[in-house]
């Protein structure tokens, strides 16, 4: 039986990886990802998980080892954060192009400099265009469920892409909360063994990761992009299957009090749960506010987003990363772009806050929404505003 226990979100990731019965873990420890890989190395050392734990010397090597592992048909996992994800970056595009399934837990951390081990989405935005499926978790239950679902998504014959599960460093990874830890029998029913028809096999030799001259490279890239866009339907189906089996449903765009809302706050990640408190309070005061959270970051859920905001007057988009000198926060830029062709377009306000681990409390969310409504009324010359910074 699945059992609700008080545990840390990082351990819930490790337990999900154990339940998924992975074959290979290659990872290098980095704050705030360490508790995930420490727990997994314990499971392997204690014989509770029959897997190879490869202690690599860097994240670049971790991702390289994961590519090799996946290519042999082994179920593969890694985890990293911030600078580690940056060091991994050069190799990240390769499993996406070579269509090598694997799951990576990314414990979102601000990028240097200045050095920060605390959370924001600058590392997440830095890997936006690596070709991975990217799913955002908001709480400990999410990280557990979505890690299990991620293996099924990644290895599904209609998908075969690597998957990142993003979770906020510290604000989520280090939180202890009641989490339903899945039962092995249930996971085994949901997640079939990894059968990879492209795997390296001496009886059927293939070359992977070859180079591509100009006469073939663009065709390969278009095929990759079309496949990633098309993976959205399978991702939705697997989310639905998970919900039907276990009662917890996940959606590419999650909504809260959004149906009749005139103003909608758009967020991503664990801060969304705090934002619901501000929405509740403003609703009590008669302010028709709602909240939507982008759960599926890649492939981007265009239809679901357009549907969720079709009758709203203004959108306030919170980014936790700066696109220095750019048009807005990166999430806001994409939302503007997604809605630009719509006949009825809401006002779209870009706010950036919560950088480098700075908390956004419910009262901050409340004033952010009220300020956004003012800006929507009066207009602004700013492309974006950075909020919660001392003047």
């Amino acid at each position, binding site marked *: 039986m699945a059992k609700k226990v008080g545990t840390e979100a990082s351990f819930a990731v490790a337990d999900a990886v154990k339940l998924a019965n992975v074959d290979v873990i290659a990872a290098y420890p980095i704050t705030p990802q360490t508790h995930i890989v420490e727990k997994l190395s314990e499971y392997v050392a204690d014989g509770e998980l029959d897997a190879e734990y490869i202690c690599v010397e860097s994240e670049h090597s971790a991702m390289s080892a994961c590519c090799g592992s996946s290519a042999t048909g082994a179920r593969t996992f890694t985890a990293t954060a911030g600078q580690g994800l940056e060091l991994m970056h050069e190799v990240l595009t390769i499993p996406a192009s070579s269509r090598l399934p694997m799951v990576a837990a990314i414990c979102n951390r601000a990028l240097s400099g200045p050095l920060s081990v605390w959370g924001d989405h600058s590392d997440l935005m830095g890997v936006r265009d690596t070709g991975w499926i990217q799913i955002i978790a908001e709480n400990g239950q999410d990280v557990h469920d979505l890690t299990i679902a991620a293996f099924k998504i990644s290895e599904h014959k209609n998908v075969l892409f690597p998957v990142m599960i993003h979770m906020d460093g510290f604000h989520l990874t280090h939180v202890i909360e009641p989490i339903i830890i899945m039962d092995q029998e249930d996971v085994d029913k949901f997640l079939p063994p990894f059968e990879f028809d*492209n795997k390296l096999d001496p009886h059927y030799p293939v070359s992977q990761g070859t180079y591509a001259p100009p006469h073939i490279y663009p065709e390969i890239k278009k095929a990759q992009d079309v496949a990633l866009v098309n993976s959205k339907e399978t991702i939705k189906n697997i989310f639905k299957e998970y919900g039907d089996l276990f009662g917890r449903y996940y959606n590419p765009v999650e909504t809260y009090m959004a149906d009749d809302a005139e103003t909608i706050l758009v967020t991503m990640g664990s801060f969304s749960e705090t934002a619901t408190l501000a929405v509740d309070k403003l609703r009590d005061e008669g302010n028709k506010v709602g909240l939507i959270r982008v759960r599926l970051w890649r492939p981007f859920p265009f239809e679901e987003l357009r549907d969720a905001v079709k009758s709203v007057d203004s959108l306030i988009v919170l980014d936790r990363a700066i696109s220095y000198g750019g048009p807005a926060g990166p999430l806001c830029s994409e939302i503007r772009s997604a809605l630009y062709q719509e006949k009825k377009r809401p006002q779209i306000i870009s706010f950036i806050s919560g950088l480098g681990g700075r908390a956004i409390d419910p009262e901050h969310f409340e004033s952010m929404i009220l300020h956004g409504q003012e800006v929507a009324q009066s207009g602004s010359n700013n492309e974006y505003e950075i909020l919660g910074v001392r003047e």
Partner: protein
Amino acid sequence: MLSWKDIPRGAIVTTPGSAKEYRTGDWRSQRPEWDLAKCIKCGLCYIYCPDASIGWNDDGYPLWDEYHCKGCGICACECWTKAINMVEETE
């Protein structure tokens, strides 16, 4: 030429050894020429060739693979009897 729809998933290459069909020798701007009178069949050119473009003929002399030699000149540099000369490609 393949359409994007025909690209094997992950752009894998399913025909072993198919790289030899790609004539990288087309990139060459210089070609090695052997003066067999000076060649002592030591095999250094064969060992140093980074593209495996030097083999052997029946008499034990180096056999040049013009389809894959990129003209790097390492063989000429390493040949200690100066039996290899790099000359400009004219075609």
